[in-house]
């Protein structure tokens, strides 16, 4: 008990660092939950086009109305049109040629002229004109007059289909929960690795270790007590984060995914704990710990999609990230967010990720044990 008590007292002396990491985490989480809300709001925007009509038929009027509905028509004198297109004040110049209506009705091939810039708005304009052309070509064969053709086109283009997403997922809640647990990766790893390394460095200080070795407490028991104390602290950090997740993203946590997020967090906590153990056997001196732990925790977070979503990261970065435990943790959170239903088939990749994380735990612990034994032999 005395070892556990001393361990906790040393942690208490480092409480300032724990508070800093928790505050960073809370700031990130709250900021993210706000940006998350705006991400789901879309603003409609019409592309600006310059429309030049050389025809005054019913069909060309119908096309003008159609263009006017879906695009912003800008009037420009002829000499300014090319400049406007170059400077992207407009994305297209649409030209309805002479006798367009008459030619279409008589079955002649007549195309609407279009000049575009290279951007997505111009592609949208092309898409809309193709749509009109397809409808027009369908009905031109089945109608007898231009008026009938215009009526048929207008009624066809007016019809709309109501689209509903048939997903049962509460996407917003799960995105918030995933983002929360992704950000938690940094705070959890920093809080656990940094603090445990600092505390263990005090216990592993050469003179303190000598004093422990000459005491009547078996060294194996002493090491076990230190490991248990580290475990206790890591579990406390994990428990706090889980508790915070239920407070900050309750909707996501109340779904069937909640328990999976918690389990994923638990495994990541064990990875951080064993990594802390490994680093404490290698790192000597508190300054070295501060520097290296920051490099590891921030590096893992940036490379594996904690701060920047993984979708935005280049493939080469993601290939490197696969050798880091944080990658598998973040990917599990992403799977939990996007998997439609959790059944035997869909849970399998999640379980594989869990197995990979467990593998990291075993690897770190075994390496730590080996180095620790080696150090003891040298001493």
């Amino acid at each position, binding site marked *: *008990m*005395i070892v556990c*008590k*001393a361990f906790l*007292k*040393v942690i208490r*002396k*480092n409480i300032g660092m724990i508070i800093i990491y928790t505050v960073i985490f809370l700031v990130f989480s709250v900021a993210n939950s706000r940006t998350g809300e705006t991400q789901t709001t879309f603003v409609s925007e019409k592309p600006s086009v310059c429309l030049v009509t050389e025809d005054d038929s019913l069909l060309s009027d119908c096309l003008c109305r159609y263009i006017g509905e879906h695009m912003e028509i800008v009037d420009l004198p002829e000499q300014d049109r090319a400049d406007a297109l170059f400077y992207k004040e407009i994305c297209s110049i649409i030209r309805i040629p002479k006798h367009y209506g008459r030619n279409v009705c008589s079955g002649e091939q007549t195309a609407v002229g279009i000049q575009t810039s290279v951007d997505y708005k111009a592609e949208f304009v092309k898409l809309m004109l193709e749509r009109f052309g397809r409808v027009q070509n369908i009905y031109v064969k089945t109608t007898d007059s231009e008026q009938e053709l215009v009526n048929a086109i207008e009624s066809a283009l007016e019809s709309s289909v109501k689209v509903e997403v048939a997903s049962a997922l509460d996407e917003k809640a799960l995105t918030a929960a995933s983002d929360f647990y992704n950000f938690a990766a940094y705070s959890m790893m920093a809080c656990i690795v940094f603090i445990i390394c600092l505390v263990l460095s*005090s216990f592993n*200080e050469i*003179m*303190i270790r*000598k*004093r*422990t*070795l*000459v*005491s*009547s*407490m*078996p*060294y194996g028991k*002493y090491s076990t007590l230190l490991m248990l104390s580290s475990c206790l602290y890591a579990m406390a950090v994990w428990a706090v984060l889980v508790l915070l997740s239920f407070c900050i993203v309750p909707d996501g946590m109340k779904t069937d995914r909640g328990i999976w997020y918690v389990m994923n967090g638990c495994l990541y906590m064990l990875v951080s704990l064993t990594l802390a153990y490994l680093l404490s056997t290698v790192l000597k001196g508190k300054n070295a710990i501060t520097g290296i732990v920051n490099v590891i925790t921030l590096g893992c977070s940036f490379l594996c999609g904690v701060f920047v979503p993984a979708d935005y990261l280049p493939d080469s970065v993601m290939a490197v990230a696969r050798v880091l435990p944080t990658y598998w943790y973040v990917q599990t959170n992403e799977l939990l967010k996007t998997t439609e239903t959790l059944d035997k088939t869909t849970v399998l990749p999640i379980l594989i990720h869990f197995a990979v994380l467990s593998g990291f735990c075993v690897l770190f612990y075994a390496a730590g044990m080996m180095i620790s034994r080696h150090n003891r032999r040298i001493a």
Partner: protein
Amino acid sequence: MSVILEVSHLTKEYKTVKAVDDLSFTLNEHEILGLLGPNGSGKSTTMNCILSLLRYSSGSIRIHGKEMSPSAYDLKQEIGVIFQDVAVFEELTVYDNIRYFCGLYIRDRKTAEAYIEDAIHLTGLEDYRKFYPKQLSGGLLRRLNIACGIAHKPKLLFFDEPTVAVDPQSRNNILEGIEKLREQGASVIYTTHYMEEAEQLCDRIIIMDKGKILASGTPDSLKSITSVTEKVMAEVPRLSEEKLHKLEGEVTNGSIRYENGRLVVSFHDGKDHITHLIDILRRMQISYLRIYSERPTLNDVFLELTGKELRD
């Protein structure tokens, strides 16, 4: 007096160096045994071997008749160690540090608390219980280091040069504390390279050099080894080679050394040679700032045994 510690033919070899060479000695109950020698003479290595912090090449170490080993926890319960370097937690208060190290030996809370109070009282740290090590002076830090090592009331104590870089007042406090511990029933092994301390504190002294025992015995018996009966020292700022030779011719019953403005004349028969030397110096018109006489010290013993001074 029963034997607490028995070291027989202890040898510790590193690749090419014998740090401890066939060392044998015993420590009796309630005795303070000094291991005296210059840096690198093998004192700390011997201590580390006894404490099972180092694996030794050959020999045996028995405490209370039982073989000492890294897993001899019943023997370790009886041992307290005060290392040369301060070994405390920076993050714990004075009380918590003593509580922690005492707790490694004593499981019962009430007993531990009583023992801690005794240790705090013995080391005079009553007013500093809630201080952190960083807030303590060097002397107080040493006292805390001692308190951490003795709090569990060990019967066998090891002090590894506890007074290095300590001011005279704190040094006296530490030495008085060790005396008190002996009075309370502890046996002590005290390693030092300060001969005055060894003389003042130890019942028996082992003089070591290059891993070997050069001589052992009580301070007085050790001093009887040397042929020097009296040393007269004079502070002479300037002394020419010619005058030094002349002086050597005048002093027939002693040997003369002149180093760093200090003239040392060692006499090998009788005492009270100071007046005789003053007469010679006057006659030869050699001026001096201060002149004094001294009985032979352990340094003279060491000098005679090794041809070099202990402080070298």
